[in-house]
């Protein structure tokens, strides 16, 4: 596999695979007459960690939700893992199997135990046997360091624990890419770190990640690329070092001024 080099970060540059996992080409989306995504072009390489930030309502959630088609785009093409998302259900199924998603509100299934939450998709989507699904689930619950909570229901867990279960639940499908939509925004401050640490662990293991987050510390230390969105457009795209020290656009500077002053 050929390796290219990404923009130099503040430390040593990280080699980035040339293999493209997600490609968005001229993606446009409207809600009625309101355009939420304007000509989005984005390539995500294998193992790359991308942070997407931008003001509220700029279309960050919509962008990542188009990747697994929780939202449908109207123009342009999205290709995930070589499969182009079109009207074929089979393609959508194939893509969703390879793309994990973590939500702001966790969205664990409250009627199932933690373990069952993790076993459901492998069994019902991949047809994994119960014993194997349980083994996989325990492996990832250990990885997010809550195997001891396996038999509890989500409602009995703290927010941070729930979000870690949500991450484990996604990992059980062995995804090629993980999408995070403000995974720490609904958490009490003291629980943010445990979730970020879990995400850092994932990054270190080479997971391809797209994270919508306002955790700028995470962006600085983990991201290969930071994408700044405003009003449905990708306004700026740079390595964290460049992005934070030398933002090119006025809008980025305003945004950073606001967010870093807090």
């Amino acid at each position, binding site marked *: 596999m050929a390796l290219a080099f990404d923009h130099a970060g503040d430390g040593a540059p990280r080699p980035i695979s040339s293999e493209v996992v997600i490609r968005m080409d001229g993606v446009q989306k409207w809600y009625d007459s309101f355009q939420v995504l304007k000509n989005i072009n984005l390539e995500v390489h294998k193992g790359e960690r991308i942070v997407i930030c931008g003001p509220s309502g700029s279309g960050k959630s919509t962008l990542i939700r188009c990747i697994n088609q929780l939202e449908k785009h109207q123009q342009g093409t999205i290709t995930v893992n070589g499969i182009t998302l079109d009207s074929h259900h089979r393609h959508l199924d194939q893509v969703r199997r390879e793309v994990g998603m973590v939500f702001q509100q966790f*969205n664990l299934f*409250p009627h199932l135990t933690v373990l069952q939450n993790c076993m459901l998709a492998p069994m019902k989507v991949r047809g994994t046997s119960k014993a194997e699904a349980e083994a996989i689930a325990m492996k990832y619950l250990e990885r997010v360091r809550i195997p001891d909570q396996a038999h509890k229901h989500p409602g009995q867990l703290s927010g941070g624990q729930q979000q870690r279960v949500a991450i484990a639940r996604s990992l059980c499908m062995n995804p090629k890419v993980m999408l995070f939509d403000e995974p720490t925004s609904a958490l009490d401050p003291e629980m943010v770190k445990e979730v970020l640490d879990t995400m850092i662990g994932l990054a270190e293991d080479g997971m391809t990640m797209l994270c919508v987050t306002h955790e700028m510390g995470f962006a600085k230390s983990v991201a290969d690329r930071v994408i700044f969105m405003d009003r449905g457009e990708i306004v700026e795209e740079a390595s964290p070092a460049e992005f934070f020290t030398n933002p090119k656009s006025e809008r980025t500077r305003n945004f950073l001024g606001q967010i870093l002053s807090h």
Partner: protein
Amino acid sequence: MIRSFGYNEFLFLLSAVQWTLALSAIAFIGGATVGLFVALGRTSTIKPVRLLATGYIQLFQGTPLLMQLFLVFFGATVMGIDMNPWAAAALGLTLNASAFLGEIWRGCIQAVPRGQWEAASALGLRYPGLMRYVILPQAVKVAVPPTVGFLVQLIKSTSLAAIIGFTELTRAGQIVNNATFQPFLVFGIVAAIYFVLCWPLSLLSARLEQRYAAPAR
């Protein structure tokens, strides 16, 4: 020849209860089976399916149950189908119950937060699995109290089957009254029997509602 109301008449009423219960049970089971599909249709993302289910619900909610029973009973005869009162009552009540249960359950399905659909979809579950393993188990919890409440309505509704000649509790009351001419006594007892059937269910429904309304997590 006028008989007075006695033990035998009372036994006759009591034995008619089994037909009220049988009709209620069939209408409930049939109504629940069809009603599930009505509810799924009503919450479908496919517009024609949704419209069809909406129309079905409105048709049955917007016309009197008695007319529906008449239409099934006499309509079948007009079309040359031999329909006895039993079958007509069962079919008419099943259709009616399916519309009401469909509408009740639509609300319960929609009460499951959107995030649950999204998380299940994102994990790759398709509609059947998503419904079966994620949405419906959560909807059922919300659905139990109003469903038990509806069952009370249904038991009372079966009394209309008397008018098309099906001998359940109410019709038995009419028969006894025709022989005894003691309407206040006879229909008082009939009403009391309905009350004994329905009241525990009403209590149960209220209690279930309290239990499920209490924070579950």
